[in-house]
């Protein structure tokens, strides 16, 4: 069973005084997410956030079907095992971090005796332990984001939907989130997230979807994408016993021949690097139109 399935999702946006003009933001999105880390990338205005809003039930699609854990996305019971993080998230300034966590715990009906333990664990994970008594107004933007991330994990969700989770975080924050996501993957959880920091997506995701102008251009696993777009290799080797390295650029087809021809008694291979288009290049080429 797919954890998240989106079929033919369409959403239009009406402009003008009499709402006569129509503009399609989503022109028929089709996605199936299994137990994996699924990245959702595209330029600004492509429809990433709109798709996520439709999945969460904040906006209503004009046509199409969205199912989470096999049930309709509007079914409230689905949200019990769902975690969500919006981009540019906000919590009222006058309450403290702990009060917000209590609110979440109240909604998820987490019993009181478990809360202390859970809060400590999660806050430690995002490196905010000790800051929970302070008012949100005193938090930095990164701290708010990290707190929200911790709160998202409070109900131990099976599916996490994140809209630009890394934006606004410093490198330390990014690495914290990245390691948490990896941990979740190992536990068999699903993560569906959108981002425009391609390097992170490349690093973390199992599969990606590229969305441009309200249409999905490509859905594939990261490894196969990268390998499809390998143009050549760089082989770095040296004479045995010597320190200096020799580097040779080879075309894709030339690699195996070269490796075979290299005299293994004289030279040792230090590394073989594929020269490929990065995911970023692939994306840009899609945006510019035409296949990469």
């Amino acid at each position, binding site marked *: 069973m797919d954890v998240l399935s989106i079929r033919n999702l369409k959403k239009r946006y009406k402009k003008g005084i009499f709402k006569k003009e129509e503009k399609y933001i989503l022109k028929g999105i089709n996605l199936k997410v299994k137990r994996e880390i699924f990245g959702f990338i595209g330029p600004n205005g492509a429809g990433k956030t709109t798709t996520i*809003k439709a999945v*969460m*039930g*904040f*906006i*209503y699609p004009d046509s199409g079907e969205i199912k989470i854990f096999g049930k309709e996305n509007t079914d*409230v*019971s*689905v*949200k*019990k095992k*769902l*975690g*969500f993080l*919006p981009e*540019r*998230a*906000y*919590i*009222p300034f*006058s*309450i403290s971090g702990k*009060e*917000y966590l209590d*609110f*979440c715990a*109240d*909604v*998820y*009906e987490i019993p009181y005796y478990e809360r202390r333990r859970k809060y400590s664990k999660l806050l430690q994970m995002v490196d905010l332990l000790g800051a929970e008594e302070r008012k949100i107004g005193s938090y930095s933007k990164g701290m708010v984001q990290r707190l*929200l991330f911790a709160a998202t994990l409070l109900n131990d969700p099976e599916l996490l*939907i994140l809209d630009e989770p890394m934006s606004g975080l410093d490198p330390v924050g990014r690495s914290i989130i990245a390691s948490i996501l990896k941990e979740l993957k190992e536990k068999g959880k699903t993560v569906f997230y959108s981002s425009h920091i391609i390097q992170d997506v490349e690093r973390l995701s199992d599969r990606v979807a590229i969305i441009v102008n309200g249409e999905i251009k490509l859905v594939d696993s990261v490894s196969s994408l990268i390998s499809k777009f390998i143009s050549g290799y760089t082989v770095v080797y040296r004479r045995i016993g010597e320190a200096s390295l020799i580097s040779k650029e080879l075309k894709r087809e030339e690699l195996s021949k070269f490796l075979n021809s290299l005299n293994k008694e004289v030279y040792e291979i230090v590394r073989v690097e594929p020269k490929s288009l990065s995911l970023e290049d692939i994306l840009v080429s899609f945006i510019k139109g035409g296949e990469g």
Partner: protein
Amino acid sequence: MNFWPVAKLTFTESVKERFFLGMLFIEVILIFFSYYLSELAAGDTVKVAMDFTLTFYFFLTALFIVMVTVSTIFRDISEKFIYLVLSKPIKRETYLLGKFMGSLMTLTFFLLVSFFIVSIGILGISHFSHLVVPHVILVERIFVLTITLFFMGMLLSSFSILFSVFFTSQTLATVVAILFFLSGLELSSVKEIALSSKYVSSLNKLLIKIFYYVFPNFSLYDIKSYVVHVQVILPPIYLILIFFYTLIYTAAVIFISNWLFSRRDL
């Protein structure tokens, strides 16, 4: 239908706002103002001071509940906090009901403190006025007024929610709610004057009658003369009747608000 988490959060958030203390502070200042103004009247100055103090109490409460309800909803929507809330297993109706309950809890707290302030203020004014024949002050009647103000706040809060869901601008929702409240106050006077006047056409009279029955009648909650004058009698059934009136009307408005809210793209 567990609206309690949202209600608790709304209450915690609203009570800590500076606005809450600000309103109470204004109330205290207005009590002093009433006292000094009342000294200009020859005779029963305590009556005049009570009139002013209770009028300020009445209108401040209305203003307070409108602003608290509207601002808490708009803050959630405009700052996208509502996404965080609705991403949890909470139905939209539950959220709205929780907002309503949270506002009511804030109102209750506000009214309790205000009752205390107003009673002490009036008793103080009476003490410092040195009237030859003291004006009788029944504090329990001030408490009855506080209860009716709670009902008024309930009804007004539900309308504020309706306008917050309907309009996309916070200022517009606030202003419309306040004007709505003032119109609701006018109603019975307009009806009294128009229906007894020979210059009003019968079509207009019918329209006024229809309007009167449909529109909420906020003047029901104005029992100031009962508090000020000891000889005015209020039958206990009055309170029961306005309680049910408030309950029924509030429920209707909340249902309409839920219907609108569930259709809205956020």
